[in-house]
């Protein structure tokens, strides 16, 4: 559960000491039906997954439900995880984010949906991340890096990630052209990537 994990997984270090298995090794074991390894994977990743889902969907009961779906999906897809395309946690969080957003959207579509006004004015305020008190070192680090983005970049990135909005919706919400939002998101992420030292 550390930010260092990305470097470790990329380095392909040989395992000489009996340390805990890497997330990648856990996924590989899970793909062969190893439930123990999967339980370990859950233990190591679920605070990140559940917390993000909770932030997006808001309701703890729904967040738990969605998280359960996510881990079933991860279990089912474990043999199809491809380390060449990225690490376990980004893969898992991508699945999780997609599911969380799906949940929010299906909840919306069960109400009246073809109303742009409703979309723009609904009561779904995104958390301004700066209000939150975080204690973990990683969180402090990420917060610092996020604080170094321009306010416009920060806003676009957090709206999309924690608000679960598409970039088109972000553009509508902010009343700026889509191209501007694309640029803000991309530049913001590039800046985060470079500052956090998370390499591809």
């Amino acid at each position: 559960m550390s930010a260092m994990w990305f470097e470790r997984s990329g380095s392909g270090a040989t395992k000489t000491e009996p340390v805990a298995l890497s997330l990648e090794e856990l996924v590989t074991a899970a793909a062969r039906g190893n439930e123990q390894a999967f339980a370990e994977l859950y233990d190591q990743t679920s605070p990140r997954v559940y917390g993000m889902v909770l932030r997006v969907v808001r309701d703890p009961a729904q967040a738990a439900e969605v998280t359960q779906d996510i881990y079933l999906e991860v279990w089912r897809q474990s043999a199809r995880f491809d380390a060449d395309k990225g690490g376990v946690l980004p893969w898992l969080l991508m699945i999780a984010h997609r599911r969380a957003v799906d949940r929010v959207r299906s909840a919306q579509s069960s109400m009246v949906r073809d109303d742009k006004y409703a979309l723009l004015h609904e009561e779904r305020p995104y958390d301004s991340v700066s209000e939150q008190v975080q204690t973990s070192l990683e969180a402090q680090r990420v917060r610092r890096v996020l604080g170094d983005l321009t306010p416009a970049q920060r806003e676009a990135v957090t709206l999309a990630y924690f608000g679960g909005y598409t970039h088109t919706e972000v553009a509508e919400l902010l009343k700026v052209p889509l191209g501007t939002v694309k640029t803000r998101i991309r530049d913001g992420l590039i800046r985060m990537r470079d500052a956090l030292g998370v390499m591809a």
Partner: protein
Amino acid sequence: MTDELTGLVGAYALDALDDDERAMFEEHLASCAECAEEVRGLRNAAAELSHLSEVSPPPQLRAAVLATVAQSRPLPPRVEGAGDNVLPLRRNRSAALWQGLAAACALIAIAVSAWGYSEHRDAQRADARVSVVETLLNAPDVRATTTAMKQGQGTLIYSRSEHRLVLIGRGMPVLPANQTYQLWMMTKTGEPISGGVFRPDPDGNVEVPASGDLDGVDRMGVSVEPAGGSVQPTAATVQVLKL
């Protein structure tokens, strides 16, 4: 890589594309090493954001997850080089069943839109009909057959396990007020059983839901009867539709 696609890299890594954009970008991604590299880095950065929302899940969730997992098995790996990390995600709603039902669905789409049309007249009945179709669609043994009638055509959608059937009539002659159509379930041995009377709309279109035990029923009949219907079909006018 084109400017348009370049612009999508960040939003893709952040999962901020809609379904169409994502599909388009993933197609491009498969053949663009440069984009794939950038996506990896940006996705790592996006994943770091989840540190900010980290929180312990409710303790009982662990047991629930592991119980679910114990009842399922991982899918086999992809063998052909098609292994995306790029998420299967759209839920697989028993794809095989739905593919098998494609033909029936097409017919039902027609039927449902026709019902939608009549909705302003009789919203509740239309809803009831739609739910009959839904029930039928979900039946594992749903079948559809279309028969050209003397005038117009009739499609039967039915499920023996659900004991349900819908007749969709198209281009049927409109009858005078003192006559009506009547639907019959016919077996090789017994006498025809009435499935009810019906009248097409002015364009000759009609949907008739019926329910009953279809065991042994191999044909449906449509006859023209005096208004109010008959106990037994008037043989001369029966149009037979085979199941």
